[in-house]
């Protein structure tokens, strides 16, 4: 039955015990993919005709950027599920997803900034994508700050879920607006968007890295969710048994 599955997923205990079995696999897959992708990208993919070796940053920059964005939706959706179906685990996922997303957003901003120095000669420009990313970073920080500001965990969860949802409504609007703003103002001197010239031999490691980051994200999310569950359910008997058995 689909619904029993759905409700089982809502049980922290069920989630904790199932994920114990998944984790070793997930961690290994993530690490292998990341290692293969990085070595391939750093050492074996050919250098870019225009950007030389600095383009190798793409193998972490782009996957991090993808996950940063996808992470926000994951966070918001779990918040929505928590609000609508009052599923315990989904709020826990919401709590866990915010810092992970924020860290990945930071990674994409940082790598982008470092990449900018050799490419554009400056650490920072107010390009549309960069600016949207920065705003996304603030949205994450807002959700985290709100979570931390509440004393009651229940209120923290609900409040950050509302904020995440409002943010979700806004993200497409923000992206479109920033895009529009940038085309309006684009200074003639710098041109950025010529990325599609990427060679297929450069693409495979990128693909591997993107998949690797997705698995990594799932792993990190599950890990963080598990600690949150342990904290939340510290009085439950199964957690005490678990602790005594450890």
């Amino acid at each position: 039955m689909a619904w029993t599955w759905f409700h089982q997923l809502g049980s922290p205990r069920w989630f904790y015990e199932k994920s114990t079995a998944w984790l070793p696999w997930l961690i290994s897959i993530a690490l292998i993919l990341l290692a293969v992708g990085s070595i391939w990208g750093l050492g074996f993919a050919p250098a870019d005709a225009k950007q030389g070796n600095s383009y190798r940053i793409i193998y972490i920059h782009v996957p991090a950027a993808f996950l940063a964005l996808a992470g926000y939706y994951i966070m918001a959706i779990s918040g929505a599920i928590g609000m609508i179906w009052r599923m315990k685990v989904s709020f826990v996922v919401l709590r866990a997803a915010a810092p992970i997303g924020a860290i990945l957003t930071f990674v994409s901003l940082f790598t982008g900034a470092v990449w900018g120095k050799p490419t554009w000669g400056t650490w920072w420009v107010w390009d549309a994508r960069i600016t949207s990313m920065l705003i996304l970073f603030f949205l994450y920080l807002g959700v985290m700050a709100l979570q931390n500001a509440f004393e009651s965990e229940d209120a923290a969860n609900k409040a950050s879920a509302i904020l995440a949802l409002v943010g979700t409504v806004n993200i497409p609007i923000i992206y479109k607006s920033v895009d529009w703003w940038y085309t309006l103002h684009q200074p003639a001197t710098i041109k950025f968007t010529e990325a599609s010239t990427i060679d297929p031999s450069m693409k495979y490691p990128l693909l591997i890295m993107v998949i690797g980051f997705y698995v990594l994200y799932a792993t990190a999310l599950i890990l963080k969710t598990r600690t949150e569950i342990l904290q939340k359910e510290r009085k439950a008997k199964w957690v005490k048994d678990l602790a005594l058995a450890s």
Partner: protein
Amino acid sequence: MTTVNTQQSKGVVQDVSFWAGFLATFQRDITLAYRNQGELFNPLIFFLIVITMVPLGITPDPKMLAVLAPGMIWVVALLATLLSLDGLFRSDFEDGTLEQIMLSPNPLYLTVLAKVVVHWLVTGLPLTLLAPVLGVMLSLPAEGYGALLLSLFLGTATLSLIGSIGAALTVGLRKGGLLLSLIVMPLYAPVLIFGASSVSSAIEGIGISSQVAVLGAFLAFGLMLAPFATAGALRVGVNG
């Protein structure tokens, strides 16, 4: 001494008009704003003073200022709105009025809407009306004034609406003031972009109908959704 009739014991308020909560709160908040006139003028003064700082801190060159003017006025108007938002539900929360609002059988989102409307009447509207003066101070070219007025008129209302969600989320928190900024500012970006660019476009002689249309759409959207989100957020904030 007491002239109470307890006979009508059950369901006493069920026949009350849908809008009673809105009207009562609207009247009360207007009175409050009038009573605390200081607060009424504070955002205006903030607006004025920050705009005065700009030539001091950045450049007194009129040509340069003219370029900065649309964006600068918009950014400062946004800040003034934002900072005045902190008090939107805070004082109601602290003196227990918010509890009473939530326990009244009137629809919460209408009461919220009343508070937001008053907030706009008391900050956004005066800011809009003061903006041309600041335009003069920052050498804004003559073509920009119409767009400035129109965009601020539509935009500040949207800012009040969006901001009320943040104010509600932070209402129960000790000193939520700047946390509110963090939460709300990213959401303000689109309004700022279209607002400021409508003024620049007007100065450059390009039509501004598209920006105004977007600002209008934001406002309509905000009017429909924000009060509900705010009402939900208040329930969380008071409970937590």
